[in-house]
């Protein structure tokens, strides 16, 4: 049986288009808002019936809202484990949402720029994801989605604490801005700790590719705000756009310059060796592939290699992950079979099929 998910796997979503400000280093910008609906208990205390009622309430609200009519609705509870993993790899749902239990769903735009998770930690987790540092665009879109939902639903709002959330660490704006960065040169020059320290001083969190509790894969990092109370959405966003991200991008560019100036041969060796492995390997794990793709991506941006385009690389980052690989292959694969399939898939893409 064909599901809406069979189609999405062949292409990369809006946020992987490789456009937008600072897109060579800023992969994507995501903004998420946490909201809870008045009249229901928060999810830790909601019985199955109430959870069900919450998903139905949100679904009908999105169907009534003119601007949200084109959303694709997916019942996450009914999905196979593989399809849930696929949505996690595409950043349409969180790992927590995938691994949860009980009635829960996601509704997303066909372009995958916007998604609404229902019954994750809060009743609603609205997210908008854009390529590069398109942070203003992301905020405008999510703000207008929130407005549309607010016309249909009453959100819990407290005069002092703002939007109320199940975890007090999200209360206030309920906003989480997460910017995904590609920082290969800072890692090669061992300067990441400096960046991490600076981020912590500014009350920001640095995490791996899939957010909370995940490791950095292939030099990709997510940086996000932790403070949600006492600062407005605009202040938080302005900070990312004007201070935090430009600073980190500047560090990464400086590190790239240093490498080019002092270690250009070693750098070329890394880039071309990575290309060599990707074009020839017969067995490759996703971690190893991510690391080499990261080096090739850097090589492309500093002009050491032209034989591959950004679009292909971006799609590869997504499609070599376990669930994508299995969906593209059309059947379940064990670890070793995936390594074989992954190596073959990358060879085909990079050697021009």
């Amino acid at each position: 049986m064909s599901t809406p998910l069979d189609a999405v796997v062949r292409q990369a979503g809006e946020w992987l288009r490789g456009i937008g400000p600072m897109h060579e280093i800023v992969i994507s910008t995501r903004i998420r808002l946490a909201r809870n609906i008045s009249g229901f208990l928060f999810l830790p205390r909601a019985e199955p019936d109430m959870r069900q009622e919450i998903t139905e309430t949100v679904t009908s609200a999105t169907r009534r809202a003119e601007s949200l009519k084109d959303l694709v609705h997916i019942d996450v509870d009914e999905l196979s484990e593989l399809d849930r993993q696929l949505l996690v790899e595409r950043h349409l749902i969180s790992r927590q949402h995938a691994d949860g239990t009980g009635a829960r769903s996601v509704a997303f735009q066909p372009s995958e720029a916007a998604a609404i998770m229902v019954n994750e930690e809060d009743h609603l987790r609205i997210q908008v994801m854009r390529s590069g540092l398109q942070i203003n665009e992301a905020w405008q879109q999510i703000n207008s989605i929130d407005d549309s939902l607010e016309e249909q639903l009453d959100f819990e709002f407290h005069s002092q604490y703002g939007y109320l959330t199940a975890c007090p660490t999200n209360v206030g704006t309920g906003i989480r801005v997460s910017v995904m960065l590609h920082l290969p040169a800072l890692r090669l020059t061992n300067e990441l700790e400096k960046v991490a320290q600076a981020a912590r001083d500014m009350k920001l969190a640095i995490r791996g590719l899939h957010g909370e509790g995940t490791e950095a894969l292939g030099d990709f990092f997510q940086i996000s705000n932790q403070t949600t109370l006492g600062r407005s959405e605009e202040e938080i966003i302005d900070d990312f756009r004007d201070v935090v991200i430009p600073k980190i991008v500047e560090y990464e560019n400086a590190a790239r310059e240093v490498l080019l100036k002092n270690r250009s041969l070693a750098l070329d060796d890394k880039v071309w060796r990575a290309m060599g492995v990707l074009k020839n390997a017969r067995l490759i794990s996703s971690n190893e592939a991510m690391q080499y793709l990261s080096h090739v991506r850097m090589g492309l941006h500093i002009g050491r290699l032209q034989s591959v385009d950004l679009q292909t690389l971006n799609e590869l980052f997504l499609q070599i992950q376990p669930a994508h690989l299995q969906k593209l292959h059309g059947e379940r694969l064990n670890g070793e079979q995936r390594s074989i399939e992954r190596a073959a898939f990358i060879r085909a893409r990079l050697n021009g099929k």
Partner: protein
Amino acid sequence: MGRCERCKKAKATFHLTNIDRSGSKVERHLCDKCAAEEGLLQTAKAVDLNDILQNFIASSKTSGTDLSTLVCDRCGISYVEFRNQGLLGCANDYEVFKEQIARLLERTHAGGSVHTGKTPKSLGVAHKPQHDIRRLKRQLAEAVAAEDYERAAKLRDRVRQLEDS
């Protein structure tokens, strides 16, 4: 670059200028290791909100009031359950555990204790000017600290304008 004034071996990477009680300037130049040993350098450890939350909630166990009897009559969650899972059961809990939450929020939100962001349209715009003034005042303080007096003057005028209206 100078050597660390304490161990006299490693490069001084940590520089601190203090004003002592008599009002004179005291400069320190240390390597990271010595700075850490003197407790001047924060060790590179992630600020984990959940850790803060857990520690905070655990520490409040020993405070004066008997928190174990606090229970929300709407969702039925007890303070102990909240303490263990870190998640609240309903909006009413923000009132029931008011004091505990107020202290927790100050620690996890860098001192922020009042929402200054978006307000649902259905609630009208009544809160809005207040929020703006508070925000502008903070931006004003930041601009003064950064010695950006041009921006500070503009912000000051805007605050006055709002306060008069």
